[in-house]
């Protein structure tokens, strides 16, 4: 079976971007997938989608990222996209404490609608706006330690830590998944072509599923 080069991946992970409106989710996504930033991006209506592949431990990981609308009104529709996601970047704006206060609500959303073992990373965006900082790093850090989340501060504008945030969550997911695969080595369907293909998001990659195994 032949694959297009950009379709040549070992793992496909579905990740969602959530958090209040205006915190910079869409710009984090465009920075990561297209290296673009816009001061006047449009608000997200419903969901938007993009992908990018990165290397972890010599494996190609393809991230299929769903960027969701921040406004509460869209939540009934967007929460359907949490299903099958193995990672969530929960974004707040370091210059608006209310967006940090709402993190609890977003965590509840994930508990209600996402898989229970989803990997969550809290992202404090707009770190370039130092003079407007409203949420102290230590406070967010402390919160994450208590909740067992990973944490990073980013700037989509200056491109600080954006790569790192995605790299980190995808690596974390990879480690969990590859460990799981090793644990269940014997039950695993035999995979041809030396490809160790794990499709997390069964629904959206029928073709790939046929080629490989499925871990969840």
């Amino acid at each position, binding site marked *: 079976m032949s694959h297009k080069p950009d379709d040549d991946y070992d793992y496909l992970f579905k990740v969602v971007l959530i958090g209040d409106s205006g915190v910079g989710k869409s710009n984090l996504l465009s920075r990561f997938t297209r290296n673009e930033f816009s001061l006047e991006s*449009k*608000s997200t209506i*419903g*969901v938007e989608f993009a992908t990018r592949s990165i290397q972890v431990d010599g494996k190609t990981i393809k991230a299929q990222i769903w960027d969701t609308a921040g406004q509460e*009104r869209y939540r009934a*529709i967007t929460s359907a996209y949490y299903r099958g996601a193995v990672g969530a970047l929960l974004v707040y704006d370091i210059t608006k404490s209310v967006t940090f206060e709402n993190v609890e609500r977003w965590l509840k959303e994930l508990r209600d609608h996402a898989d229970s073992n989803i990997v969550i990373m809290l992202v404090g965006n707009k770190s370039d706006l130092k003079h407007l900082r409203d949420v102290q790093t230590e406070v967010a850090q402390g919160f994450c330690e208590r909740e067992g989340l990973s944490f990073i501060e980013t700037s989509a504008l200056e491109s600080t830590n954006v790569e790192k945030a995605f790299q980190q969550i995808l690596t974390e997911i990879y480690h969990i998944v590859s460990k799981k695969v090793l644990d269940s080595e014997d039950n695993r369907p035999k995979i041809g072509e030396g490809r160790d293909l794990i499709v997390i998001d069964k629904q959206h*990659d029928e073709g790939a599923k046929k080629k490989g195994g499925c871990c969840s």
Partner: protein
Amino acid sequence: MAMERRVSEDPSTSYDVPANGGPIGTQQQQAAVASGASQGLLQQAAIPEHRVRKFNKLLQEAVVDLDALRELSWSGVPLSLRPQVWRLLCGYLPPARSRQAQTLDRRRREYADMVPEYYDIPHEERSEDEVAAYRQVVVDVPRTAPNVPFFHEPIIQESLQRLLYIWGIRHPASGYVQGMNDLVTPFLAVFLSEHLPGPMEGWSADTLNESIMLAVEADCYWCLCKLVEGIQDHYTYAQPGIQRAVFRIKELVRRCEAEVSDHLESEAVDFIQFALRWVNCLLVRELPFCLAIRLWDTYLAEGTGFSEFLIYLSAAFLLSWKERLTRLEFQDLILFLQRLPTADWTEAQLERVLSEAFILRSSYSDAQSHLRLG
């Protein structure tokens, strides 16, 4: 319905007479005939002179025949007449000309009174929900129509912020919902065009004073109210109106192009993934701005039934890429559908889709098919 005959009777290809050559004798804005706007944000393909004359004739009657105006407007309203025609089609202005000035005056005053009542109040006096609504509007206004620089003038931003916030407070069933900012933009451009001559790219905010701006804002406000009136349930909790509309678009596509719908289904593409935004923003987001304005002519001509027409329009819009769609796989499908290549679409292309939608409605709308016999 009066406009049923429009498509067959008036082929949209007959644009051979320059629109702005003849005498356009309206009551009001001779100056707004943006003769230079052949390209750009307020651009318009030339409208045949006989059509312009028909418009003028209708508008000069003592009582404007709204049915006739709807029928005529469906295929596009001349640039210079849009402000007046849109106000009439929205039901914002009464058809009796003798009452128009007075009504306009009253409505604008009513709006002006809302500003101190709802907007110019200290933050502490707002409820928690109101503060949240305010915050949402403030986040969205700067992200409104990024490709229309004039909307980013401070005076316009302030105006948008006020009217969207007030709209939300006055419509608590839905409140302000993201995307409504997009719905105001056609009104804003058109009502501003009465006060700012020439193509939009050359407009200067310096010539706008507070009172002109407040009048424009009031017109936008009331027309937005009328537009959203029939689609309130698009924006209430869980957006049932949109979910229903998206479902109907999907069903319609299945009935008329099974191949496309089968392909989307086999690729696990769900209509909600792309059509939510189409319906939520009435396709404004999918088209260049000048075409959104042209689209508004048809919506407003459709009147209260426009949300029904939107179903057919969305299906026709989707099917205009049917060859392309059936060749793409899941990922490329989604990427393609969320950024359709319409940037250089012309009015003629949009009108083709409108005609397609019109035909779809005639063929698939059970309720209306009998009308075609007449």
